[in-house]
Protein backbone atom coordinates (compact mmCIF):
# COMPACT_ATOMS: atom_id res chain seq x y z
CA UNK A 1 0.00 0.00 0.00
CA UNK A 2 2.71 2.40 1.07
CA UNK A 3 4.97 1.83 -1.94
CA UNK A 4 1.97 2.02 -4.20
CA UNK A 5 0.95 5.43 -2.86
CA UNK A 6 4.38 6.82 -3.65
CA UNK A 7 3.76 6.50 -7.36
CA UNK A 8 0.52 8.55 -7.19
CA UNK A 9 0.43 12.24 -7.98
CA UNK A 10 0.15 14.73 -5.16
CA UNK A 11 -3.51 15.52 -5.86
CA UNK A 12 -4.45 11.86 -5.77
CA UNK A 13 -2.54 11.39 -2.56
CA UNK A 14 -4.38 14.29 -0.94
CA UNK A 15 -7.71 12.87 -2.07
CA UNK A 16 -6.90 9.48 -0.66
CA UNK A 17 -5.79 11.02 2.61
CA UNK A 18 -8.96 13.04 2.84
CA UNK A 19 -11.07 9.98 2.24
CA UNK A 20 -9.11 8.18 4.90
CA UNK A 21 -9.90 10.91 7.43
CA UNK A 22 -13.42 11.33 6.02
CA UNK A 23 -13.21 15.11 6.27
CA UNK A 24 -12.18 14.94 9.89
CA UNK A 25 -14.73 12.40 11.02
CA UNK A 26 -12.19 9.71 11.84
CA UNK A 27 -10.24 11.92 14.27
CA UNK A 28 -13.55 13.18 15.71
CA UNK A 29 -14.73 9.62 16.34
CA UNK A 30 -11.32 8.85 17.76
CA UNK A 31 -11.55 11.74 20.22
CA UNK A 32 -15.06 10.80 21.31
CA UNK A 33 -14.13 7.16 21.84
CA UNK A 34 -10.96 8.08 23.73
CA UNK A 35 -12.85 10.41 26.07
CA UNK A 36 -15.57 7.81 26.65
CA UNK A 37 -13.03 5.13 27.46
CA UNK A 38 -11.17 7.53 29.78
CA UNK A 39 -14.37 8.17 31.72
CA UNK A 40 -14.87 4.45 32.14
CA UNK A 41 -11.25 4.04 33.17
CA UNK A 42 -11.77 6.75 35.80
CA UNK A 43 -13.72 4.35 38.00
CA UNK A 44 -10.99 1.75 37.75
CA UNK A 45 -8.42 4.46 38.44
CA UNK A 46 -10.20 5.48 41.64
CA UNK A 47 -10.22 1.88 42.85
CA UNK A 48 -6.61 1.32 41.84
CA UNK A 49 -5.27 4.47 43.48
CA UNK A 50 -7.04 3.71 46.76
CA UNK A 51 -5.76 0.13 46.58
CA UNK A 52 -2.20 1.27 45.99
CA UNK A 53 -2.25 4.02 48.59
CA UNK A 54 -3.42 1.65 51.31
CA UNK A 55 -0.88 -1.11 50.58
CA UNK A 56 1.00 -1.04 53.89
CA UNK A 57 -2.13 -0.95 56.00
CA UNK A 58 -3.61 -3.81 54.04
CA UNK A 59 -0.57 -6.05 54.39
CA UNK A 60 -0.10 -5.18 58.07
CA UNK A 61 -3.66 -5.66 59.34
CA UNK A 62 -5.03 -8.08 56.77
CA UNK A 63 -8.60 -9.20 57.19
CA UNK A 64 -8.60 -8.33 60.88
CA UNK A 65 -9.08 -4.74 59.74
CA UNK A 66 -12.60 -5.52 58.60
CA UNK A 67 -13.83 -8.38 60.75
CA UNK A 68 -16.31 -7.82 63.58
CA UNK A 69 -14.75 -7.65 67.03
CA UNK A 70 -16.13 -6.54 70.34
CA UNK A 71 -12.98 -4.67 71.41
CA UNK A 72 -11.79 -3.03 68.21
CA UNK A 73 -9.07 -0.45 68.64
CA UNK A 74 -8.42 2.62 66.51
CA UNK A 75 -5.24 3.94 67.98
CA UNK A 76 -3.19 6.42 65.93
CA UNK A 77 -0.63 6.74 68.72
CA UNK A 78 0.31 3.06 68.71
CA UNK A 79 -0.44 2.61 65.01
CA UNK A 80 -3.05 -0.05 65.51
CA UNK A 81 -6.20 0.16 63.43
CA UNK A 82 -9.39 -1.85 63.12
CA UNK A 83 -12.29 -0.44 61.17
CA UNK A 84 -15.16 -2.52 62.52
CA UNK A 85 -16.78 0.22 64.65
CA UNK A 86 -17.04 2.43 61.56
CA UNK A 87 -18.35 -0.32 59.33
CA UNK A 88 -20.91 -1.18 61.98
CA UNK A 89 -21.93 2.46 62.39
CA UNK A 90 -22.33 2.91 58.65
CA UNK A 91 -24.37 -0.26 58.21
CA UNK A 92 -26.60 0.39 61.22
CA UNK A 93 -27.44 4.01 60.36
CA UNK A 94 -27.97 3.27 56.67
CA UNK A 95 -30.18 0.25 57.27
CA UNK A 96 -32.36 2.12 59.77
CA UNK A 97 -32.57 5.00 57.30
CA UNK A 98 -33.65 2.65 54.51
CA UNK A 99 -36.26 0.97 56.71
CA UNK A 100 -37.77 4.36 57.54
CA UNK A 101 -37.40 5.91 54.11
CA UNK A 102 -38.79 3.04 52.07
CA UNK A 103 -42.43 3.20 53.20
CA UNK A 104 -42.45 7.00 53.06
CA UNK A 105 -40.88 7.13 49.59
CA UNK A 106 -43.16 4.38 48.35
CA UNK A 107 -46.16 6.36 49.54
CA UNK A 108 -44.94 9.55 47.88
CA UNK A 109 -44.12 7.75 44.65
CA UNK A 110 -47.56 6.13 44.56
CA UNK A 111 -49.18 9.47 45.22
CA UNK A 112 -47.14 11.18 42.51
CA UNK A 113 -47.52 8.48 39.89
CA UNK A 114 -51.03 7.16 40.48
CA UNK A 115 -53.22 9.62 42.34
CA UNK A 116 -51.92 13.12 42.01
CA UNK A 117 -53.87 15.51 39.76
CA UNK A 118 -51.88 16.60 36.73
CA UNK A 119 -51.41 20.24 37.80
CA UNK A 120 -50.01 19.25 41.18
CA UNK A 121 -47.59 16.62 39.91
CA UNK A 122 -44.86 18.90 38.58
CA UNK A 123 -44.63 21.22 41.60
CA UNK A 124 -44.61 18.26 44.00
CA UNK A 125 -41.90 16.55 41.97
CA UNK A 126 -39.82 19.67 42.23
CA UNK A 127 -40.33 20.08 45.94
CA UNK A 128 -39.27 16.52 46.62
CA UNK A 129 -36.24 16.98 44.40
CA UNK A 130 -35.32 20.24 46.13
CA UNK A 131 -34.89 18.13 49.24
CA UNK A 132 -31.98 16.50 47.41
CA UNK A 133 -30.55 19.83 46.25
CA UNK A 134 -30.00 21.30 49.72
CA UNK A 135 -26.28 20.98 50.50
CA UNK A 136 -25.31 18.34 52.99
CA UNK A 137 -23.61 20.81 55.36
CA UNK A 138 -26.84 22.79 55.60
CA UNK A 139 -28.61 19.60 56.70
CA UNK A 140 -25.83 19.14 59.23
CA UNK A 141 -26.13 22.66 60.63
CA UNK A 142 -29.90 22.37 60.90
CA UNK A 143 -29.40 18.94 62.43
CA UNK A 144 -27.09 20.16 65.19
CA UNK A 145 -29.10 23.18 66.27
CA UNK A 146 -32.70 22.28 65.46
CA UNK A 147 -33.34 18.65 64.65
CA UNK A 148 -31.20 16.97 67.32
CA UNK A 149 -32.47 18.89 70.35
CA UNK A 150 -36.08 19.28 69.24
CA UNK A 151 -36.79 15.88 67.66
CA UNK A 152 -34.04 13.32 68.13
CA UNK A 153 -33.37 13.82 71.85
CA UNK A 154 -37.00 13.41 73.00
CA UNK A 155 -37.65 10.56 70.56
CA UNK A 156 -34.49 8.80 71.72
CA UNK A 157 -35.43 9.25 75.35
CA UNK A 158 -38.85 7.79 74.69
CA UNK A 159 -37.34 4.83 72.83
CA UNK A 160 -34.91 4.18 75.67
CA UNK A 161 -37.75 4.17 78.18
CA UNK A 162 -39.93 1.79 76.18
CA UNK A 163 -38.02 -0.44 73.75
CA UNK A 164 -34.86 -0.28 75.85
CA UNK A 165 -36.32 -2.72 78.38
CA UNK A 166 -37.11 -5.48 75.92
CA UNK A 167 -34.47 -8.22 76.17
CA UNK A 168 -32.54 -8.76 72.94
CA UNK A 169 -33.93 -5.91 70.90
CA UNK A 170 -33.26 -3.60 73.83
CA UNK A 171 -29.53 -3.75 73.07
CA UNK A 172 -30.19 -1.41 70.16
CA UNK A 173 -32.07 1.02 72.36
CA UNK A 174 -30.07 1.22 75.57
CA UNK A 175 -29.60 4.75 76.81
CA UNK A 176 -28.72 7.06 78.20
CA UNK A 177 -29.55 9.33 75.33
CA UNK A 178 -27.04 12.24 75.19
CA UNK A 179 -28.56 15.61 76.09
CA UNK A 180 -27.40 17.14 72.80
CA UNK A 181 -29.08 14.38 70.82
CA UNK A 182 -25.86 13.50 68.96
CA UNK A 183 -26.32 9.81 68.24
CA UNK A 184 -26.57 7.14 65.61
CA UNK A 185 -30.34 7.67 65.74
CA UNK A 186 -29.85 11.32 64.77
CA UNK A 187 -27.66 10.30 61.86
CA UNK A 188 -30.16 7.67 60.74
CA UNK A 189 -33.06 10.15 60.83
CA UNK A 190 -31.14 12.81 58.88
CA UNK A 191 -30.15 10.15 56.36
CA UNK A 192 -33.81 9.17 56.06
CA UNK A 193 -34.71 12.71 55.03
CA UNK A 194 -31.78 12.88 52.62
CA UNK A 195 -32.44 9.63 50.76
CA UNK A 196 -36.20 10.03 50.41
CA UNK A 197 -35.78 12.06 47.17
CA UNK A 198 -33.52 9.40 45.62
CA UNK A 199 -35.81 6.47 46.34
CA UNK A 200 -38.92 8.48 45.45
CA UNK A 201 -37.62 9.67 42.09
CA UNK A 202 -36.56 6.23 40.89
CA UNK A 203 -39.69 4.50 42.19
CA UNK A 204 -41.92 7.12 40.59
CA UNK A 205 -40.22 6.67 37.22
CA UNK A 206 -40.56 2.91 37.52
CA UNK A 207 -44.27 3.19 38.36
CA UNK A 208 -44.83 5.56 35.45
CA UNK A 209 -43.18 3.08 33.11
CA UNK A 210 -45.76 0.39 33.87
CA UNK A 211 -48.18 -0.09 30.98
CA UNK A 212 -51.67 1.20 31.63
CA UNK A 213 -53.40 -1.98 30.51
CA UNK A 214 -52.13 -3.66 33.65
CA UNK A 215 -54.07 -1.17 35.75
CA UNK A 216 -57.12 -1.27 33.50
CA UNK A 217 -57.31 -5.06 33.60
CA UNK A 218 -57.19 -5.05 37.36
CA UNK A 219 -59.82 -2.30 37.71
CA UNK A 220 -62.01 -4.12 35.17
CA UNK A 221 -62.22 -7.25 37.28
CA UNK A 222 -63.43 -5.19 40.20
CA UNK A 223 -60.35 -4.38 42.21
CA UNK A 224 -60.30 -1.09 44.10
CA UNK A 225 -57.64 1.44 43.20
CA UNK A 226 -55.58 0.50 46.24
CA UNK A 227 -55.87 -3.22 45.44
CA UNK A 228 -54.73 -2.44 41.91
CA UNK A 229 -51.70 -0.58 43.22
CA UNK A 230 -50.86 -3.11 45.90
CA UNK A 231 -51.51 -6.34 44.02
CA UNK A 232 -50.75 -5.42 40.42
CA UNK A 233 -48.64 -2.29 40.05
CA UNK A 234 -46.20 -2.86 42.90
CA UNK A 235 -45.41 -6.54 42.18
CA UNK A 236 -44.94 -5.62 38.54
CA UNK A 237 -42.38 -2.97 39.47
CA UNK A 238 -40.72 -4.91 42.27
CA UNK A 239 -37.25 -5.18 40.76
CA UNK A 240 -37.26 -1.48 39.92
CA UNK A 241 -38.24 -0.60 43.49
CA UNK A 242 -35.50 -2.88 44.75
CA UNK A 243 -33.09 -0.97 42.51
CA UNK A 244 -34.35 2.30 43.99
CA UNK A 245 -33.78 1.00 47.52
CA UNK A 246 -30.25 -0.09 46.70
CA UNK A 247 -29.51 3.28 45.11
CA UNK A 248 -30.79 4.96 48.27
CA UNK A 249 -28.66 2.64 50.38
CA UNK A 250 -25.59 3.58 48.34
CA UNK A 251 -26.35 7.25 48.89
CA UNK A 252 -26.80 6.71 52.63
CA UNK A 253 -23.56 4.74 53.00
CA UNK A 254 -21.52 7.48 51.35
CA UNK A 255 -23.19 10.52 52.90
CA UNK A 256 -20.52 12.37 54.83
CA UNK A 257 -21.01 15.88 56.11
CA UNK A 258 -24.48 15.79 57.64
CA UNK A 259 -23.74 12.48 59.35
CA UNK A 260 -20.38 13.67 60.65
CA UNK A 261 -22.06 16.69 62.19
CA UNK A 262 -24.80 14.82 64.05
CA UNK A 263 -23.44 11.38 64.92
CA UNK A 264 -21.21 12.51 67.79
CA UNK A 265 -18.00 10.90 66.49
CA UNK A 266 -16.98 8.56 69.25
CA UNK A 267 -15.84 4.97 69.23
CA UNK A 268 -18.01 3.14 71.69
CA UNK A 269 -18.40 -0.51 72.40
CA UNK A 270 -22.19 -0.44 72.57
CA UNK A 271 -24.26 -1.27 69.51
CA UNK A 272 -27.02 1.06 70.70
CA UNK A 273 -28.74 3.41 68.27
CA UNK A 274 -29.11 5.95 71.03
CA UNK A 275 -25.38 6.39 71.64
CA UNK A 276 -22.88 8.45 69.65
CA UNK A 277 -20.96 6.55 67.00
CA UNK A 278 -18.86 6.88 63.90
CA UNK A 279 -19.32 5.97 60.26
CA UNK A 280 -16.73 5.14 57.62
CA UNK A 281 -17.28 8.42 55.82
CA UNK A 282 -17.27 10.50 58.99
CA UNK A 283 -14.03 9.05 60.33
CA UNK A 284 -12.31 9.94 57.05
CA UNK A 285 -13.79 13.44 57.12
CA UNK A 286 -12.74 13.99 60.72
CA UNK A 287 -9.27 12.52 60.84
CA UNK A 288 -7.73 12.54 57.37
CA UNK A 289 -6.45 16.10 57.24
CA UNK A 290 -4.97 15.73 60.73
CA UNK A 291 -3.49 12.26 60.26
CA UNK A 292 0.20 12.43 61.13
CA UNK A 293 1.62 8.96 60.74
CA UNK A 294 1.79 7.30 57.35
CA UNK A 295 -0.06 4.26 58.65
CA UNK A 296 -2.93 6.39 59.95
CA UNK A 297 -3.37 7.94 56.50
CA UNK A 298 -3.20 4.53 54.89
CA UNK A 299 -5.72 3.04 57.29
CA UNK A 300 -8.14 5.88 56.50
CA UNK A 301 -7.63 5.34 52.77
CA UNK A 302 -8.35 1.66 53.31
CA UNK A 303 -11.62 2.61 55.00
CA UNK A 304 -12.32 4.67 51.86
CA UNK A 305 -11.46 1.67 49.71
CA UNK A 306 -13.97 -0.50 51.56
CA UNK A 307 -16.61 2.21 51.21
CA UNK A 308 -15.80 2.51 47.50
CA UNK A 309 -16.17 -1.21 46.87
CA UNK A 310 -19.44 -1.49 48.77
CA UNK A 311 -21.04 1.47 46.99
CA UNK A 312 -19.67 0.37 43.61
CA UNK A 313 -21.19 -3.07 44.01
CA UNK A 314 -24.54 -1.70 45.22
CA UNK A 315 -24.70 0.83 42.40
CA UNK A 316 -23.99 -1.75 39.73
CA UNK A 317 -26.72 -4.02 41.05
CA UNK A 318 -29.15 -1.12 41.33
CA UNK A 319 -28.46 0.15 37.82
CA UNK A 320 -28.98 -3.31 36.36
CA UNK A 321 -32.29 -3.71 38.21
CA UNK A 322 -33.58 -0.29 37.19
CA UNK A 323 -32.44 -0.72 33.61
CA UNK A 324 -34.22 -4.05 33.36
CA UNK A 325 -37.55 -2.49 34.24
CA UNK A 326 -36.94 0.55 32.07
CA UNK A 327 -36.02 -1.56 29.07
CA UNK A 328 -38.89 -3.99 29.49
CA UNK A 329 -41.51 -1.39 28.67
CA UNK A 330 -39.96 1.32 26.55
CA UNK A 331 -42.75 1.83 24.02
CA UNK A 332 -45.63 1.34 26.36
CA UNK A 333 -44.35 3.87 28.87
CA UNK A 334 -46.89 6.42 30.00
CA UNK A 335 -45.93 10.01 29.37
Amino acid at each position, binding site marked *: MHTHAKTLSEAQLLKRLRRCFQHGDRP*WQGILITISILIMV*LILAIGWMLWR*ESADARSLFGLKFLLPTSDASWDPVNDHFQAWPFIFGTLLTSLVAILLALPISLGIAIFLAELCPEWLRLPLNWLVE*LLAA*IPSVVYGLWGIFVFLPLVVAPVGQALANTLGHIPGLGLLFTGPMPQSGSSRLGAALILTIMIIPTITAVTRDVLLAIPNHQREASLAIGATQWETI*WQVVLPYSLSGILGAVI*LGLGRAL*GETMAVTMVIGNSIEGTPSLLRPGYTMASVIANEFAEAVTKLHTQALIEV*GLVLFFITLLLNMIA*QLLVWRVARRTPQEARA
Partner: protein
Amino acid sequence: MTRFQQLIAKNQAALSTHRKTVNVVMLSLTGLLTLLALIPLFWIIGYVVYRGGKSINLDFFFHLPRPLGMAGGGVLHAIEGTLVVTLLAAVFAIPPGVLAAFYAVRNPNTPLGVALRFSTDVLSGVPSIVIGLFAYAIMVKPMGHYSGLAGGVALAILMLPTIIRTTEEMLKLVPHALYEGSLALGAPEWKTSLSVIFPAALNGVITGFLLAIARAAGETAPLLFTTLGNERYDIMGIIRNGILQHQSFFQIFGRLVNQPVDSLPLTLWKYAQQPYPERIDQAWAVALVLMILVLLINIFARLWIETRKRRLQG
Protein backbone atom coordinates in the same frame (compact mmCIF):
# COMPACT_ATOMS: atom_id res chain seq x y z
CA MET B 1 -69.54 7.31 30.37
CA THR B 2 -68.00 4.56 28.39
CA ARG B 3 -69.19 1.01 28.83
CA PHE B 4 -65.90 0.23 30.55
CA GLN B 5 -66.43 2.95 33.15
CA GLN B 6 -70.02 1.80 33.73
CA LEU B 7 -68.76 -1.66 34.52
CA ILE B 8 -66.31 -0.25 37.02
CA ALA B 9 -69.03 1.84 38.60
CA LYS B 10 -71.29 -1.19 38.94
CA ASN B 11 -68.51 -3.19 40.52
CA GLN B 12 -67.65 -0.43 42.91
CA ALA B 13 -71.23 -0.35 44.15
CA ALA B 14 -70.90 -3.99 45.09
CA LEU B 15 -67.74 -3.52 47.09
CA SER B 16 -67.74 -4.51 50.70
CA THR B 17 -67.30 -1.62 53.09
CA HIS B 18 -64.08 -3.17 54.37
CA ARG B 19 -62.37 -2.98 51.01
CA LYS B 20 -63.70 0.53 50.50
CA THR B 21 -62.30 1.66 53.82
CA VAL B 22 -58.91 0.11 53.15
CA ASN B 23 -58.89 1.84 49.78
CA VAL B 24 -59.67 5.27 51.18
CA VAL B 25 -57.34 4.93 54.17
CA MET B 26 -54.35 3.77 52.14
CA LEU B 27 -54.83 6.29 49.37
CA SER B 28 -55.04 9.17 51.81
CA LEU B 29 -52.03 7.76 53.64
CA THR B 30 -49.91 8.23 50.52
CA GLY B 31 -50.97 11.88 50.39
CA LEU B 32 -50.13 12.31 54.07
CA LEU B 33 -46.70 10.76 53.56
CA THR B 34 -46.05 13.27 50.79
CA LEU B 35 -46.91 16.08 53.18
CA LEU B 36 -44.72 14.49 55.87
CA ALA B 37 -41.71 14.50 53.56
CA LEU B 38 -42.22 18.17 52.76
CA ILE B 39 -42.16 19.20 56.44
CA PRO B 40 -38.35 18.99 56.74
CA LEU B 41 -37.95 20.88 53.47
CA PHE B 42 -39.95 23.87 54.62
CA TRP B 43 -38.58 23.59 58.14
CA ILE B 44 -34.97 23.76 56.90
CA ILE B 45 -35.61 26.53 54.39
CA GLY B 46 -37.64 28.56 56.87
CA TYR B 47 -35.19 28.21 59.72
CA VAL B 48 -32.11 28.94 57.58
CA VAL B 49 -33.78 32.06 56.17
CA TYR B 50 -34.73 33.18 59.69
CA ARG B 51 -31.35 32.59 61.37
CA GLY B 52 -29.24 33.50 58.35
CA GLY B 53 -31.26 36.60 57.62
CA LYS B 54 -30.61 37.89 61.14
CA SER B 55 -26.85 37.75 60.82
CA ILE B 56 -26.24 38.54 57.18
CA ASN B 57 -25.03 42.00 56.16
CA LEU B 58 -22.84 43.66 53.56
CA ASP B 59 -19.63 43.20 55.56
CA PHE B 60 -20.28 39.51 55.32
CA PHE B 61 -19.74 39.61 51.56
CA PHE B 62 -16.92 42.13 51.30
CA HIS B 63 -14.52 41.48 54.18
CA LEU B 64 -12.07 38.83 55.17
CA PRO B 65 -12.63 37.19 58.57
CA ARG B 66 -11.57 39.28 61.56
CA PRO B 67 -10.44 37.98 64.95
CA LEU B 68 -13.24 37.05 67.32
CA GLY B 69 -14.69 40.00 69.15
CA MET B 70 -14.02 42.43 66.32
CA ALA B 71 -17.13 43.43 64.46
CA GLY B 72 -17.46 43.47 60.71
CA GLY B 73 -15.68 40.32 59.62
CA GLY B 74 -16.95 38.47 56.58
CA VAL B 75 -16.36 35.43 54.48
CA LEU B 76 -14.96 37.03 51.33
CA HIS B 77 -12.14 34.47 51.32
CA ALA B 78 -14.66 31.63 51.14
CA ILE B 79 -16.75 33.28 48.42
CA GLU B 80 -13.64 33.80 46.31
CA GLY B 81 -12.43 30.29 47.05
CA THR B 82 -15.74 28.78 46.03
CA LEU B 83 -15.65 30.77 42.79
CA VAL B 84 -12.11 29.69 41.96
CA VAL B 85 -12.61 26.02 42.78
CA THR B 86 -15.96 25.60 41.04
CA LEU B 87 -14.77 27.49 37.95
CA LEU B 88 -11.71 25.26 37.76
CA ALA B 89 -13.94 22.22 38.14
CA ALA B 90 -16.26 23.44 35.38
CA VAL B 91 -13.31 24.02 33.05
CA PHE B 92 -12.00 20.52 33.74
CA ALA B 93 -15.35 18.73 33.54
CA ILE B 94 -17.32 20.44 30.78
CA PRO B 95 -15.24 19.63 27.65
CA PRO B 96 -14.86 15.89 28.30
CA GLY B 97 -18.43 15.71 29.59
CA VAL B 98 -19.86 17.25 26.43
CA LEU B 99 -17.76 15.05 24.13
CA ALA B 100 -18.79 11.93 26.02
CA ALA B 101 -22.42 13.04 25.75
CA PHE B 102 -22.01 13.36 21.97
CA TYR B 103 -20.74 9.80 21.86
CA ALA B 104 -23.56 8.50 24.06
CA VAL B 105 -26.21 10.21 21.92
CA ARG B 106 -24.90 8.94 18.59
CA ASN B 107 -24.14 5.42 19.82
CA PRO B 108 -26.82 4.51 22.35
CA ASN B 109 -26.75 0.79 21.64
CA THR B 110 -23.15 -0.03 20.86
CA PRO B 111 -21.30 -1.90 23.60
CA LEU B 112 -19.14 1.15 24.30
CA GLY B 113 -22.18 3.44 24.44
CA VAL B 114 -23.99 1.17 26.90
CA ALA B 115 -20.81 0.80 28.95
CA LEU B 116 -20.36 4.57 28.98
CA ARG B 117 -23.86 5.25 30.25
CA PHE B 118 -23.52 2.47 32.80
CA SER B 119 -20.24 3.80 34.15
CA THR B 120 -21.62 7.34 34.21
CA ASP B 121 -24.45 6.13 36.41
CA VAL B 122 -22.07 4.18 38.60
CA LEU B 123 -19.67 7.13 38.87
CA SER B 124 -22.50 9.32 40.10
CA GLY B 125 -22.96 6.88 42.98
CA VAL B 126 -19.35 6.98 44.18
CA PRO B 127 -19.36 8.78 47.56
CA SER B 128 -17.94 12.29 47.37
CA ILE B 129 -15.54 11.61 50.23
CA VAL B 130 -14.01 8.76 48.24
CA ILE B 131 -13.52 11.11 45.30
CA GLY B 132 -11.81 13.46 47.74
CA LEU B 133 -9.42 10.65 48.73
CA PHE B 134 -8.72 9.97 45.05
CA ALA B 135 -7.96 13.63 44.35
CA TYR B 136 -5.69 13.64 47.39
CA ALA B 137 -3.83 10.62 46.04
CA ILE B 138 -3.37 11.95 42.51
CA MET B 139 -2.92 15.68 43.22
CA VAL B 140 -2.06 16.60 46.79
CA LYS B 141 0.37 13.78 47.48
CA PRO B 142 2.52 14.18 44.35
CA MET B 143 2.48 17.99 44.58
CA GLY B 144 3.27 17.89 48.27
CA HIS B 145 0.74 20.53 49.34
CA TYR B 146 -2.97 21.27 49.42
CA SER B 147 -4.28 23.46 46.62
CA GLY B 148 -7.36 24.88 44.94
CA LEU B 149 -6.30 22.96 41.87
CA ALA B 150 -6.70 19.62 43.66
CA GLY B 151 -10.15 20.71 44.87
CA GLY B 152 -11.05 21.63 41.30
CA VAL B 153 -10.09 18.15 40.11
CA ALA B 154 -12.17 16.53 42.86
CA LEU B 155 -15.25 18.62 42.08
CA ALA B 156 -14.75 18.03 38.34
CA ILE B 157 -14.99 14.26 38.82
CA LEU B 158 -18.08 14.84 40.91
CA MET B 159 -19.69 17.04 38.24
CA LEU B 160 -18.86 14.82 35.30
CA PRO B 161 -21.81 12.40 35.54
CA THR B 162 -24.35 15.23 35.90
CA ILE B 163 -22.87 17.07 32.93
CA ILE B 164 -22.82 14.00 30.72
CA ARG B 165 -26.37 13.02 31.60
CA THR B 166 -28.01 16.43 31.23
CA THR B 167 -26.09 17.22 28.03
CA GLU B 168 -27.13 13.87 26.61
CA GLU B 169 -30.77 14.57 27.47
CA MET B 170 -30.63 17.97 25.80
CA LEU B 171 -28.84 16.71 22.68
CA LYS B 172 -31.48 14.00 22.36
CA LEU B 173 -34.21 16.66 22.21
CA VAL B 174 -32.74 18.24 19.06
CA PRO B 175 -34.87 17.09 16.11
CA HIS B 176 -33.21 14.40 14.05
CA ALA B 177 -34.08 16.28 10.85
CA LEU B 178 -31.49 18.95 11.70
CA TYR B 179 -28.81 16.31 11.89
CA GLU B 180 -29.83 14.67 8.65
CA GLY B 181 -30.20 18.01 6.88
CA SER B 182 -26.70 19.04 7.79
CA LEU B 183 -25.22 15.73 6.69
CA ALA B 184 -27.18 15.93 3.42
CA LEU B 185 -25.61 19.30 2.71
CA GLY B 186 -22.25 17.60 2.87
CA ALA B 187 -21.10 18.72 6.31
CA PRO B 188 -18.98 16.13 8.07
CA GLU B 189 -20.22 14.62 11.30
CA TRP B 190 -17.98 16.68 13.60
CA LYS B 191 -19.04 19.92 11.96
CA THR B 192 -22.69 18.89 12.22
CA SER B 193 -22.27 18.06 15.88
CA LEU B 194 -20.39 21.21 16.84
CA SER B 195 -22.02 23.86 14.67
CA VAL B 196 -25.58 22.54 14.20
CA ILE B 197 -26.58 20.17 16.99
CA PHE B 198 -24.67 21.80 19.84
CA PRO B 199 -25.94 25.37 19.22
CA ALA B 200 -29.48 24.03 18.90
CA ALA B 201 -29.19 22.41 22.32
CA LEU B 202 -27.03 25.12 23.87
CA ASN B 203 -29.57 26.75 26.18
CA GLY B 204 -30.55 23.46 27.73
CA VAL B 205 -26.96 22.31 27.94
CA ILE B 206 -25.93 25.46 29.80
CA THR B 207 -28.80 24.92 32.21
CA GLY B 208 -27.38 21.48 32.87
CA PHE B 209 -23.96 22.99 33.52
CA LEU B 210 -25.51 25.39 36.01
CA LEU B 211 -27.20 22.53 37.86
CA ALA B 212 -23.92 20.66 38.05
CA ILE B 213 -22.05 23.76 39.22
CA ALA B 214 -24.68 24.50 41.87
CA ARG B 215 -24.34 20.98 43.17
CA ALA B 216 -20.56 21.17 43.22
CA ALA B 217 -20.59 24.55 44.95
CA GLY B 218 -22.42 23.00 47.89
CA GLU B 219 -20.06 20.05 48.29
CA THR B 220 -17.79 19.86 51.29
CA ALA B 221 -16.47 16.34 51.63
CA PRO B 222 -14.17 16.30 48.57
CA LEU B 223 -12.61 19.61 49.64
CA LEU B 224 -11.73 18.66 53.22
CA PHE B 225 -8.30 17.36 52.32
CA THR B 226 -7.77 18.82 48.86
CA THR B 227 -8.25 22.57 49.31
CA LEU B 228 -8.01 22.34 53.13
CA GLY B 229 -9.00 25.96 53.82
CA ASN B 230 -7.21 29.30 53.98
CA GLU B 231 -8.56 32.23 55.95
CA ARG B 232 -6.27 34.74 54.26
CA TYR B 233 -7.15 33.91 50.67
CA ASP B 234 -7.59 37.20 48.84
CA ILE B 235 -7.75 37.30 45.06
CA MET B 236 -7.37 41.07 44.76
CA GLY B 237 -4.37 41.04 47.07
CA ILE B 238 -2.66 38.30 45.09
CA ILE B 239 -3.26 40.08 41.80
CA ARG B 240 -2.09 43.43 43.19
CA ASN B 241 1.10 41.92 44.60
CA GLY B 242 1.67 40.05 41.38
CA ILE B 243 1.43 43.20 39.29
CA LEU B 244 3.64 45.17 41.68
CA GLN B 245 6.27 42.44 41.47
CA HIS B 246 5.99 42.31 37.66
CA GLN B 247 4.93 38.69 37.61
CA SER B 248 3.62 37.15 34.40
CA PHE B 249 -0.02 36.18 34.00
CA PHE B 250 0.82 32.52 34.49
CA GLN B 251 2.71 33.18 37.71
CA ILE B 252 -0.24 35.10 39.13
CA PHE B 253 -2.68 32.44 38.01
CA GLY B 254 -0.45 29.80 39.55
CA ARG B 255 -0.48 31.61 42.86
CA LEU B 256 -4.27 31.83 42.72
CA VAL B 257 -4.86 28.12 42.24
CA ASN B 258 -1.72 26.57 43.68
CA GLN B 259 -2.32 27.31 47.34
CA PRO B 260 -4.89 26.14 49.86
CA VAL B 261 -8.20 27.95 49.44
CA ASP B 262 -11.41 28.03 51.40
CA SER B 263 -14.96 27.52 50.26
CA LEU B 264 -18.37 28.40 51.63
CA PRO B 265 -19.41 24.88 52.70
CA LEU B 266 -15.99 24.27 54.23
CA THR B 267 -16.27 27.51 56.21
CA LEU B 268 -19.76 26.54 57.35
CA TRP B 269 -18.45 23.22 58.61
CA LYS B 270 -15.58 24.78 60.52
CA TYR B 271 -17.66 27.58 62.04
CA ALA B 272 -20.44 25.21 63.08
CA GLN B 273 -18.01 23.30 65.27
CA GLN B 274 -16.72 26.37 67.09
CA PRO B 275 -18.16 27.31 70.48
CA TYR B 276 -18.44 31.05 69.67
CA PRO B 277 -21.91 32.47 69.00
CA GLU B 278 -20.53 34.93 66.39
CA ARG B 279 -19.12 32.07 64.40
CA ILE B 280 -22.36 30.11 64.65
CA ASP B 281 -24.26 33.16 63.39
CA GLN B 282 -21.89 33.42 60.45
CA ALA B 283 -22.34 29.71 59.78
CA TRP B 284 -26.09 30.32 59.45
CA ALA B 285 -25.44 33.24 57.12
CA VAL B 286 -23.21 31.02 54.97
CA ALA B 287 -25.95 28.40 54.97
CA LEU B 288 -28.42 31.02 53.75
CA VAL B 289 -26.13 32.12 50.91
CA LEU B 290 -25.46 28.53 49.87
CA MET B 291 -29.10 27.58 49.99
CA ILE B 292 -30.30 30.60 48.02
CA LEU B 293 -27.63 29.93 45.39
CA VAL B 294 -28.51 26.27 45.06
CA LEU B 295 -32.28 26.65 45.21
CA LEU B 296 -32.43 29.56 42.75
CA ILE B 297 -30.31 27.78 40.19
CA ASN B 298 -32.35 24.62 40.65
CA ILE B 299 -35.71 26.29 40.29
CA PHE B 300 -34.76 28.36 37.25
CA ALA B 301 -32.97 25.48 35.57
CA ARG B 302 -35.94 23.21 36.01
CA LEU B 303 -38.42 25.81 34.79
CA TRP B 304 -36.27 26.40 31.77
CA ILE B 305 -35.77 22.73 30.93
CA GLU B 306 -39.47 22.05 31.35
CA THR B 307 -40.61 24.81 28.99
CA ARG B 308 -37.99 23.79 26.48
CA LYS B 309 -39.04 20.15 26.56
CA ARG B 310 -42.67 21.17 26.02
CA ARG B 311 -41.74 23.36 23.08
CA LEU B 312 -39.58 20.75 21.39
CA GLN B 313 -41.95 17.88 21.97
CA GLY B 314 -44.91 19.94 20.80
